[in-house]
């Protein structure tokens, strides 16, 4: 494991920890208003306060959980979907492959953001888990496409043919012969999906289509934008949440590089 991968895992572990303990270590109630309105970062308020005197540091800490939960739930759901569709298509070939590939390509080509905005705003109660499920429905297609390609290259290999010749059932060949060889691809697909889901959730909160009653980093940005934080020069209102998003995204991308380099030795650093 190289330095980049370790750095990525370290940052991810840090955010995972905050997601668990954030609510307990937050110095204030994130929704509690105070007289200390719109004050820049100080000893009492590390990230400053909002227009109504809410503590932004507490909002970021408490909001981490929502972000990580959606990322994880979407990652798991979408990865399962992509394995089901991608591996089945790649292994079976023929008409099943044509139909499933077409399905995933359609999901890839249709712009997901406007569609999800419509769905999210039509739902009467858009709570976190429901949103996670909706995001997963649009997030699986990329992974399915890559898994299909990889499975196709595996299904004519000798060890698969040997399993087939010895009369193994199809599902058994897929689970015990093919899947273990796809782990790196599945892993990087999972990480990529988490990035996608986190970005999408934050975006949806930012444009205000999902519930603002629970805190996440996008909600903070929504309030900053709708209260004209930019015009007031209140940079501390939107900078911390954005940096957290970028850090989390970078960490996940670094982990993905690690997986890519593990799977494709040509990408490893050359010693000059």
């Amino acid at each position, binding site marked *: 494991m190289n330095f980049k991968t370790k750095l990525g895992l370290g940052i991810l572990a840090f955010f995972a920890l905050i997601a668990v303990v954030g609510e307990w270590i937050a110095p204030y109630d994130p929704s509690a208003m105070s007289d200390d309105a719109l004050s820049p970062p100080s000893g009492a308020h590390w990230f400053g306060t909002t227009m109504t005197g809410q503590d932004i540091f507490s909002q970021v800490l408490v909001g981490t959980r929502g972000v990580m939960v959606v990322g994880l739930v979407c990652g798991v759901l979408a990865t399962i979907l992509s394995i089901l569709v991608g591996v089945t298509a790649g292994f079976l070939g023929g008409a099943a492959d044509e139909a499933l590939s077409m399905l995933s390509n*359609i999901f890839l080509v249709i712009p997901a*953001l406007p569609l999800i905005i419509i769905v999210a705003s*039509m739902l009467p109660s858009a709570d976190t888990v429901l949103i996670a499920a909706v995001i997963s429905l649009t997030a699986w297609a990329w992974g399915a496409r890559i898994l299909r390609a990889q499975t196709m290259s595996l299904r004519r290999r000798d060890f698969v043919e040997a399993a087939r010749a010895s009369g193994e059932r199809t599902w058994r060949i897929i689970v015990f012969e093919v899947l273990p060889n796809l782990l790196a691809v599945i892993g990087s697909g999972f990480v990529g999906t988490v990035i996608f889901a986190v970005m999408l959730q934050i*975006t949806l909160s*930012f444009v205000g289509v999902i519930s603002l009653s629970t805190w996440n980093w996008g909600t903070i940005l929504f309030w900053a934008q709708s209260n004209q934080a930019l015009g007031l020069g209140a940079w501390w209102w939107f900078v911390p949440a*954005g940096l957290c998003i*970028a850090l989390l995204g970078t960490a996940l991308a670094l982990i993905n590089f690690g997986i890519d380099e593990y799977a494709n030795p040509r990408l490893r650093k050359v010693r000059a």
Partner: protein
Amino acid sequence: MTFLLRRAAFYLVTLWAAITANFLLPRLLPGDPVQAMITKLGGRLNSDAMASLYVLFGLDKNKSIWEQYVDYWAALVQGDLGLSFTFFPTPVADVLSQSMPWTLGLVGVTTVIAFLLGTLLGVYAGWKRGSWMDNLIPITTFLSSIPYFWLGLIAISVFSVTWPLFPASGGYAPGLVPEFSGEFIGSVLEHAVLPGVTIVVSSVAGWILGMRNMMVTVTAEDYVLVARAKGLTQKRIMFAYAARNAVLPSISGFALSLGFIVGGALLVEMVFSYPGLGYVLFQGIGAKDYPLMQGVFLVITLAVLVANLLADIGYLLLDPRTRREG
């Protein structure tokens, strides 16, 4: 030709899927927001407008779903997308045709710039692997992890609040009349700088990375070694041998990532109050203006499909294997 026909057929199916999804969503999801809207607007709707909203949102319970579907298509073919609640009583189609050119201009130009710039940088980064260019990768990774809209917020805060170099919002200076004059075009360009740079900076990283990794893979191929052995110039090997082959996944990826990029670009428009489809969509969200939101979705999907077809033609020109008959 077979290749293009296959692709065109696929895009038609995709378009059908998008339209059908648009038809089904308001009918499947609970709640009756459009009915509520119509009740609120009360007597201000004339009977034609009422009829078209009933067709588009399936409020007529006396018809079977199949009849509704046929009516829906009939309305779409006539370009009837209903009335916008936000810009009442303007038809959605009119709102869209006003904002469409702005989005096409901004997103189209910046996407092409980001693709060309990113691919070129990726070619160099992959060719000169192990040099300082490798440092581009972590930087661009960080940049691509930033949400488009947040980068837009930062750009406004730095370049129009702290140092007022560029305007923070709008598509042209208020008070100007859209016309073909130097002053108006200058104003449009000035207003496009910040949103444009934002889109390029956040989308360029993906192209750099993809191209670099393909270049690294291709550079190890035998035909590159042969080209070197023949004593061809570095530039020729880099572009005509390595890059030409390495760019193929980027182009097929272009088609598939376009939907994603357009989503991000819509948000940039929201942040900059740029008079394109993204800003219209944003205004629609606030007012729960479903006819408008669905119209935006359809138009964007159509634009993405057309762009995809163009990318396919580019692919056809670059890769002779796709031209083979059969």
